């Protein structure tokens, strides 16, 4: 049984069909990449899964449980956390307070301290800046914070929406290393990326999305070597 299963998902923006029947699954322990050009519907799929925007049709299950109409704020309690597109950290709060909010769905002071130490070990810069207002961090640091914030809840499944967007190559590497680390530690990852090459390199499997439809799927390595994919997305 797949950890996350999306079946025949359709999403409309008014009269426009943005997602036209998309199905895919994420198995436990995997990194799955969802790649596609700007406007293909990657973020829309993410928002539909987490309940921020309504689904027109289809259903989503998490660990066999139907979460199609579960409100957004309840999903984290079921083990699904998300790093949204554009990071969306709480700009007016401190780094520490952002991490506290990441732990909002959980209880227990000792475990909080433990998670906090873990995040600070991953990203020592966050420890240095723990009392700094998050809005003053650099883009890369904000992305680290967004990721740590999501990981505070020890999710089974982590959804990452464009984590490399607007980052310098150095930070992109840091973030992708972190994705691999959390995956090795047991978190399943669904990754949406425009940086297809980077995403497919670390992904077990990938799906290719084109204007609201899945057009191709395969292992990360297969897709990296696929001529059409190379031509369309990898600049080959």
């Amino acid at each position, binding site marked *: 049984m797949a950890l996350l299963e999306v079946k025949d998902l359709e999403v409309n923006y008014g009269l426009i069909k943005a997602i036209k029947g998309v199905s895919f699954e994420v198995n436990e322990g995997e990194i799955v990449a969802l790649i596609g050009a700007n406007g293909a519907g990657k973020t829309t799929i993410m928002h539909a899964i*987490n*309940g*921020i925007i309504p689904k027109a049709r289809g259903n989503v299950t998490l660990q066999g449980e139907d979460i199609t109409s579960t*409100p*957004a*704020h*309840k*999903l*984290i*309690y079921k083990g699904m*956390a*998300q790093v*949204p597109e554009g990071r*969306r*950290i*709480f*700009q*007016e*709060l401190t780094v520490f*307070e952002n991490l*506290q*909010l*990441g732990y*909002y*769905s959980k209880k227990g002071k000792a475990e909080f301290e433990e998670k906090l130490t873990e995040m600070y070990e991953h990203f020592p810069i966050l420890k240095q800046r723990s009392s700094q207002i998050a809005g003053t961090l650099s883009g890369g640091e904000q992305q680290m914070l967004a990721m740590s*914030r*999501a990981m505070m*809840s020890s999710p089974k499944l982590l959804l990452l929406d464009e984590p490399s967007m607007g980052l310098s190559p150095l930070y992109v590497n840091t973030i992708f290393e972190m994705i691999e680390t959390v995956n090795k530690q047991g978190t399943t990852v669904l990754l949406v990326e425009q940086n297809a090459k980077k995403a497919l390199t670390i992904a077990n499997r990938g799906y290719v999305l084109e204007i609201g439809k899945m057009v191709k799927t395969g292992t990360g390595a297969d897709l990296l070597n696929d001529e059409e994919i190379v031509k369309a997305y990898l600049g080959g």
Partner: protein
Amino acid sequence: MDFVLTLVNGLSLGGIYAMIALGYTMVYGIAKMLNFAHGDIIMVGGYTVLIFLSINPILAIVASMIFCLLLGIVVEKVAYKPLRGASPLAVLITAIGVSYLLQSLALIIFGAQPEYVIIADLGVLNIGEISIGYNTIITLVSTVIIMIALTLFVKYTKIGRAMVAVSEDKDAARLMGININMIITITFAIGSSLAALAGVFSLLKVPTITPTYGSMPGIKAFTAAVIGGIGSIPGAMVGGIFLGIVECICNSIPELAPYTIAIEFLILIVILLVKPSGILGKKRREKV
């Protein structure tokens, strides 16, 4: 010496405005709506005090706060919640509708004649040449306590942090597991009970009440919230105190006294022209 007295009175009146302004600003920050029925909660609180006053003044104050707290929650659930996601104009007009509804209900129940609500005769404190009413002192002390408590609540409790998160980014807050509807309910509850308390302190100053009792303080507190920067809790405090002091200073100068209200709104216009986000308001990029 007169000036000291004016200042103390200004601080105390400003405290009342600040208490009401907190309700406006918190609701605006969290639910992104202007609750123009907020002022009328003060009036409802005042009449609730009147009803329970014959039993015990303290009980009357507590009853008034509890009743307004519940009223705030009910108004939000019945009138505003169904409009979540609707155009801001629809919500605004609904709020004005609720305001008229509350006023009309009070008119039906209590009539248009002013009622006297004498909660307590607290007497006067004499320090040298100055004599200050104990009601002024109590108002001032309570305001300070409430502001400190609210600031600590927002800064150091889980719910408080969730409120800040919701006011900044609703969707990101939901992803953290924050139930937006619950936070909105709590916000209305806090705002409305503070409005009831503000009503009590106003009645300690001038013990008469009519069905339109909440209108003027409501509008002035809204002005204070905008001057301070709507959406900002410290802004509401600063704006409220500022407006209270301005009002008392103007009233103490015979040549200016007739124009006090005009001056207050003039200040609002000037602030809106010079710094539209208010004294402590931040310019926030609206997310699409």
